[in-house]
């Protein structure tokens, strides 16, 4: 280039410098794209930044229907608390209810309508639009309806109450012959049937634990998840220490100690399926010793004859002295209350056993009285006909119809039968025979994974709805569920979806509501009109606002309903057949006792990280599945904690680690339900095992409900060993007096002395 003079040099440097500077600025700009922090000079009307807004709604994490208040800040839900005004939970809330926030903000939520491409269950889902989805579904429904073949339509939902159930009913009316099945794994079919037979009312009564002084529970884990756990816990707490001078005594009869069994003063292990005999034995003693003074006493004595303490001891394995003592306590401490459900109802003799429990209540004279069994008034709103909850038999029938090509459209909402039905039902295979499946779920669970179209609904925190809780509180209660945040994604509330389908079916005149909120208000206008509410200034609108503000509406006191008379033929028929089990005891020496896991219930909580990280209350295990073994059994089989065994029934096999559980009968093994998902998001997938798969298709003959506690299994060691991830360390107190107990037993028991006195330390 030759020499460069000074000017040229400076020019080059200048140009180079500018170029470099420009390049630098550009690079920096790409590294840190401009971000805007937009303050609120004119904040939106819905919220004041930094000030919380509370919205009352209804929890939907379990069927109890507790009222909740959700704290929102800047349009985001931050914390769920119990609604203090709601009589079911009175401001309290269980762990699963708290985790509702993680349903709303779950990273695996479906964000918009999807359509399957490729093979069912394998092909990827692609985004589509609501119009497409609704139009296609309605089109197919219309086709079938026009042909008079709308009996080939089936709607499969979880249990629904309130106005949404009424809306479903209306929609079903547009499709003559279509069936609506409500399926929940833990629906208390046998309890309802027992109440129908005994009291003539097939509904869930109200159990007044709060005022009872002696509660005898046959298999009902009332604190753990049975019916209405928060209300039961309130009642339990108050019965224990809420009144001066009278501490409630709780006794639990079950083959494996549940949470209620741990809280109880006594846990009585009885052979699986024989709890009904125990109830009859106690009833017989009560009548024989003059504890019952009703007019039909003789009929009862005759019906209960033969169930002596010794006979019952032989059947149940409970010592005769214990039976006599229980009977004496039950009769002598009034008001006494008997509860039955859970595993007790999950046998082939379930209905008969629960009838026996009802009999106990009747004979104790607590029906319709405080501290006893009370009947709820009929709900103030909801579907006209009582919903038909699908039993296992009904689901088998559905599957059979599907296989025979008699189902052409299936709409699934909020229920996951591919997970919650045993493998023996063959439900997944049956689904393959249904040409068109639509799911309204918010998550890609196993059943939704087999759908053709997904029209995801809002989560309960984004939806309008209402609820009249069951089992209720013994008086009329209604609560309105309102959205607490704006919908996050392109989803719609179930009510809106149903209305959309109805309109697309051309039934617009029968469904004159713009959306679910409208429908709800119209429904509540009727409630307002019917009910004895004093007309106030502002009329319905003011009433509506005040109900939303309180979160709940209804009566505020319980009326004693008298005790209905029991028919003579019912009394004569009181009796329990021995339980049947699937599998011979030689091949399958253990009875499998599956129980709803505390945090995950029937599997619905498995996609919530808070629930996966909640240690199981009895075993403290996180994130996994296990099988519980009695310590003597474990020693006999040479198994230690963490040894992986195959739990095998005649219908399936799953591999899980062993947990040595001190409070389970020697020939019973227990497994929590909830893990073992094949889909349902990152927190749930491919973790643990699902014991429902192993269950035999044995049913209770009256209801057709699954006898889920009647499967026999065997344990086959695999030789593998894993380290169970659990919170607990050493599970004995070693005499350190950490949990202290009052009474004589506390001082003389082993290892109960104070830490500062020389003691002998036992090796445990």
């Amino acid at each position, binding site marked *: 280039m030759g020499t460069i003079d000074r000017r040229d040099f400076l020019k080059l440097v200048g140009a180079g410098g500018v170029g470099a500077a420009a390049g630098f600025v550009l690079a920096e700009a790409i590294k840190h794209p401009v971000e805007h922090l937009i303050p609120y000079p004119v904040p939106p009307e819905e919220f004041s930044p930094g000030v919380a807004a509370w919205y009352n709604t209804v929890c939907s994490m379990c069927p109890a229907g507790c009222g909740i208040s959700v704290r929102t*800040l800047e349009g*985001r839900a*931050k*914390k769920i*608390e*119990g609604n203090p005004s709601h009589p079911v*939970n009175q*401001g*309290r*809330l*269980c*762990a699963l209810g*708290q*985790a509702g*926030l*993680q349903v709303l*903000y*779950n*990273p695996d939520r479906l964000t918009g309508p999807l359509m399957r491409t490729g093979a069912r269950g394998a092909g990827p889902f692609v985004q589509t639009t609501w119009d497409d989805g609704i139009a296609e579904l309605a089109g197919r429904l219309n086709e079938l309806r026009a042909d008079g073949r709308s009996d080939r339509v089936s709607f499969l939902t979880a249990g629904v109450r309130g106005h949404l159930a009424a809306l479903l009913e209306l929609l079903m009316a547009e499709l003559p012959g279509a069936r609506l099945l409500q399926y929940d794994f833990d629906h208390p079919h046998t309890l309802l049937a027992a109440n129908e037979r005994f009291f003539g009312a097939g509904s869930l009564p109200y159990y007044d634990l709060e005022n009872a002084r002696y509660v005898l529970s046959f298999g009902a884990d009332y*604190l753990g998840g049975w019916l209405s*756990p*928060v209300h039961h*816990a*309130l009642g*339990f*707490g108050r019965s*224990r*220490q*809420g009144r001066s001078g009278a*501490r409630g005594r709780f006794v639990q009869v079950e083959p494996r*100690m549940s*949470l209620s069994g*741990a*809280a109880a003063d006594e*846990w009585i292990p009885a052979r699986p399926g024989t709890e009904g005999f125990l109830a009859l034995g106690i009833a017989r003693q009560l009548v024989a010793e003059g504890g019952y003074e009703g007019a039909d006493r003789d009929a009862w004595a005759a019906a209960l004859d033969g169930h002596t303490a010794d006979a019952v001891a032989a059947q149940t394995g409970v010592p005769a002295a214990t039976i006599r003592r229980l009977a004496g306590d039950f009769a002598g401490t009034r008001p006494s209350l008997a509860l039955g459900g859970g595993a007790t109802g999950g046998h082939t003799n379930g209905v008969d056993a629960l009838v026996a429990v009802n009999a106990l209540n009747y004979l104790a004279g607590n029906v319709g009285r405080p501290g006893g069994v009370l009947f709820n008034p009929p709900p103030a709103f909801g579907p006209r006909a009582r919903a038909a909850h699908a039993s296992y038999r009904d689901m088998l029938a559905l599957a059979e119809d599907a296989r025979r090509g008699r189902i052409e459209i299936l709409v699934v909402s909020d229920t996951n039968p591919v997970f919650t039905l045993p493998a023996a039902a063959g439900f997944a295979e049956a689904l393959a025979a249904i040409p068109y499946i639509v799911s309204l779920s918010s998550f890609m669970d196993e059943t939704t994974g087999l759908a053709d179209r997904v029209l995801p609904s809002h989560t309960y925190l984004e939806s309008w709805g209402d609820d009249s809780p069951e089992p209720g509180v013994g008086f009329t209660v209604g609560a309105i569920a309102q959205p607490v945040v704006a919908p996050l994604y392109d989803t719609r509330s179930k009510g809106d979806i149903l209305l959309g389908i109805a309109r697309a079916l051309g039934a617009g005149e029968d469904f004159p509501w713009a959306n679910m909120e409208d429908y709800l208000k119209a429904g509540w206008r009727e409630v307002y009109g019917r009910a004895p509410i004093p007309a106030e200034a502002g009329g319905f609108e003011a009433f509506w606002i005040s109900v939303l503000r309180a979160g709940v509406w209804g009566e505020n006191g319980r009326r004693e309903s008298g005790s209905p008379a029991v028919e003579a033929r019912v009394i004569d028929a009181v009796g329990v057949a021995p339980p049947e089990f699937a599998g011979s005891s030689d091949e399958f020496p253990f009875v499998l006792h599956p129980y709803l896991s505390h945090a995950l219930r029937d599997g619905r909580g498995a996609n919530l990280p*808070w*629930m996966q*990280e*909640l*240690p199981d*209350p*009895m075993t403290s295990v996180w994130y996994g599945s296990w099988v519980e073994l*009695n310590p003597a059994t474990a020693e006999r089989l040479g198994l230690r904690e963490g040894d992986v065994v195959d739990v095998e029934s005649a219908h399936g096999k799953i591999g899980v680690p062993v947990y040595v559980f*001190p*409070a389970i009968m020697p020939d019973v093994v227990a497994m929590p339900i909830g893990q073992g998902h094949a889909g349902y998001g*990152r927190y749930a997938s491919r973790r643990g095992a699902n014991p429902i798969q192993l269950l035999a298709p044995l049913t209770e003959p009256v209801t057709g409900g699954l006898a889920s506690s009647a499967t026999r299994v065997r344990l086959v060691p695999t030789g593998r060993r894993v380290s169970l*991830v659990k*919170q607990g360390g050493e*599970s004995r107190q070693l005499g350190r007096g*950490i*949990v*202290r*107990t*009052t*009474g*004589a*037993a*506390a001082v003389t*028991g082993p290892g109960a002395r*104070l830490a500062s006195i020389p003691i002998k330390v036992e090796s445990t």
Partner: protein
Amino acid sequence: MSFLDDFRARWRAYRHPGHYERFDYAWTMTIDLDRCTGCEACVTACQAENNIPIVGEEALAKGREMQWIRIERYWEGEYPDVKLRFIPMLCQHCDAAPCETVCPVTATYHNQDGLNAQIYNRCIGTRSCSVYCPYEVRYFNYNVHHWDKPLDEQLNPDVTVREKGVMEKCTFCIQRIRQAKDHAKDDGRRRVRDGEMQPACVQSCPAEALVFGDRQDPQSRVAKMMADPRAYRVLEELNTSPSVVYLKKVGADAG
């Protein structure tokens, strides 16, 4: 005050920095073990309120849990006379806390409400407070925690999200205490009323086993619960003076 009294007061304040003659509020919690069912609603409520991280299975397998209130379980007896006892264990806010003396940077101290307060941005992570705590209620952030979006939308803006290397523990929901005191001050400069403010765990407990309040107020529920003959403190013999009082479970034979 005379000159001598004034001088004595100043000397005492100089010699005992941070000492309070009287607490402003003496926050106390009573836990009735006869009502506690072990349902763990308190655990999840605390997790939601205080931005407690989701630790993940791998960290839990190594034993690095993060639960400011945990339920301890103790079995007693052998089958079939076997019992399972639950006891919620949380920071006892000891008046003679072993953890407060050992922190070299005073990241933990006793505040005027009788709370053992943890200052996250002062903590350098020596973890000696956790060693000195006999109740094992202090939890260390071993890793960076993250929330899969949009789970972080749920985070409570009133509570810090702690970074790795910092110790944390139950604060008796100090953010709620602060808000209640502010509200009471605005509302006619009054004191916080009994029951006006509850930590998340107390609010959620379905069996009403937890009661919270100011033990200096003789009319408060908590003061009455403390007077119960069943009242005791865990590890009393260590003289830590905890602010959490447990009520003994009633023995089964006592009817």
